[in-house]
């Protein structure tokens, strides 16, 4: 393909992938009657749509819930994965191969197969409509254990020996040296975990029925079915919901993409 052909094709592809988001953005600021019949641009930009959407459902609360849940889940996954990965990478203990297989085996059992029994478990714990229901089942990740174990194994053993000589305990070595050295892998795992928690839909839908514990995704889904006829408002709500992640993505695109490329190791 010629240089020119490549440039033209790139532009076309960019347009195809971004167009849906552009249409959403424009519809969010159109007067209601223009959504289906008006021109490409809004005849007059209805900036108040954003405020109207914000005020017609507790989006502030939804955002706060999602933020709290995603941050806690991410921290928990990083911690539990780092601890287990350290044991698997650097400690000697009986049943090690078996326990590692137990951890990795969870990759073969997708969450959707477990939707019903986990719902029943969480209900028995009295966790319906609570934060633990949205955090605890996701607080560990076999992928995380696997990824960090690889990284820890590649960190030179001499570092640990030197730290030991200086009197550091294993926990101190892990916290003060091993984790900071492996910050890039940790941040990749962190981004992937945060994204999947922030974007989760079915589980939060099933275990919450009250606004106080709903996430933005469930909030958006129910807002769109309630206010479906007022499309600019629904699109404005969509904009509110995806804005935080999209802004982070625009600022750190390369970081997101490299984290996703790391997930290829999963296979």
């Amino acid at each position, binding site marked *: 393909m010629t240089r020119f052909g*490549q*440039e033209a094709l*790139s532009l076309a592809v*960019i347009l195809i*992938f971004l167009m*849906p*988001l552009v*249409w959403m953005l424009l*519809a969010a600021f159109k007067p209601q009657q223009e*959504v*289906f019949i008006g021109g490409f641009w809004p005849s007059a930009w209805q900036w108040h749509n954003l405020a109207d959407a914000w005020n017609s459902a507790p989006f502030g609360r939804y955002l706060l819930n999602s933020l709290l849940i995603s941050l806690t889940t991410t921290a928990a996954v990083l911690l*539990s*994965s780092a*601890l*287990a990965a*350290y*044991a698997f990478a650097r*400690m*000697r203990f*009986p049943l090690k191969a078996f*326990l590692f297989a*137990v*951890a990795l085996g*969870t990759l*073969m*059992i*997708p969450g*959707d*197969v*477990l*939707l*019903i*029994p*986990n719902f*029943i*478990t969480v209900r028995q714990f009295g966790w319906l409509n609570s934060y633990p229901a949205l955090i605890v089942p996701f607080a*560990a990740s*076999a992928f995380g*254990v696997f990824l960090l174990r690889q990284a820890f194994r590649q960190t030179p053993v001499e570092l640990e020996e030197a730290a030991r000589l200086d009197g550091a305990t294993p926990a101190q070595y892990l916290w003060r040296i091993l984790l900071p050295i492996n910050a890039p892998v940790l941040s990749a795992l962190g981004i992937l975990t945060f994204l999947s928690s922030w*974007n989760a*839909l*079915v589980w939060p839908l099933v275990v919450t029925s009250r606004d106080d514990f709903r996430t933005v*995704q*469930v909030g*958006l889904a129910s807002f*769109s079915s309630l206010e479906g006829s007022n*499309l600019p408002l*629904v699109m404005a709500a969509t904009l509110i*919901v*995806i804005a935080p*992640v*999209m802004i982070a*993505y625009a600022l750190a695109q390369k970081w997101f*993409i490299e984290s*996703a*490329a790391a*997930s*290829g190791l*999963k*296979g």
Partner: protein
Amino acid sequence: MPGALLELLRAAPYLLPALLIFVVFTYYPLARVLYLSLTDADMLSAPNWVGLANYRQLLADREFWSSLGITAVFAVGVTALEVGLGLALAFLMNARTRTQSLLRGAVFAPVVVSLAATAVIWNYLLNPNSGPVNRLLEGLGIAGPGWLSDPQTALASVILVAVWKGVGLPAVLFLAGLQGLPAELEEAAAIDGASRATIARRITIPLLAPTTVVVVFISLIGTFQSYGLVLLLTSGGPAGATNLLGYSIYQNAFVFFQMGLASALSVVLFALLLTLGIIQLKLAERRVHYQ
């Protein structure tokens, strides 16, 4: 064995948090869903043992077989498109164009957009009467189809949305694969006078085989889990045209409260995914390495 026991005790605080979660929220529920599939659980009363009755009911149910067929078409369709387009996009993203960074950002952007937002946006774009997509087609002189509202095109429409949302990941994985290939082979072939198309077909794509195996299975397994789109876009309709297995589990469990039957469906889904997983492991063991 006091030494071994001591070692285990020393490792326990490190292992327990993760392993406890795995046992309580993965292995125990796996056993429990197997048990529930043999009962008439309905969330209201205590479950009664019914043996294989739920499985017999499924085997005799035309909706179940049609759901399996729809799931297969969806899985194969999405995977084929994601792998094919993903590879093509990776080549384009790897080329030195002026818009390289924007291109990478645009192709990957829908991966970052949530499933719920994707469904809400496409529900508007694909509106059969005068949604933006059909108005664009109208402008080109094409009568747009009914998309999600027509049983003939609903499944294809959901596949289209799923590919828009998902293809960025295969593209990025292929791109990483391309960037990891040694340049010498391609340079040598170019010196020998091979055309760029020949180099891609005879050298680059075969070298990417290990990446391709990974991408195929990540896509395939992902499709079984993307019924959230169906949940919001079509609720399995119209006329059951988009009734994916995953959606069918959700609907039987949380709309009809037939937990026993939905558990049997979950076990079927698990068996399917486990088979795929085993095939992947076998392929990975034998996988071709040219380097």
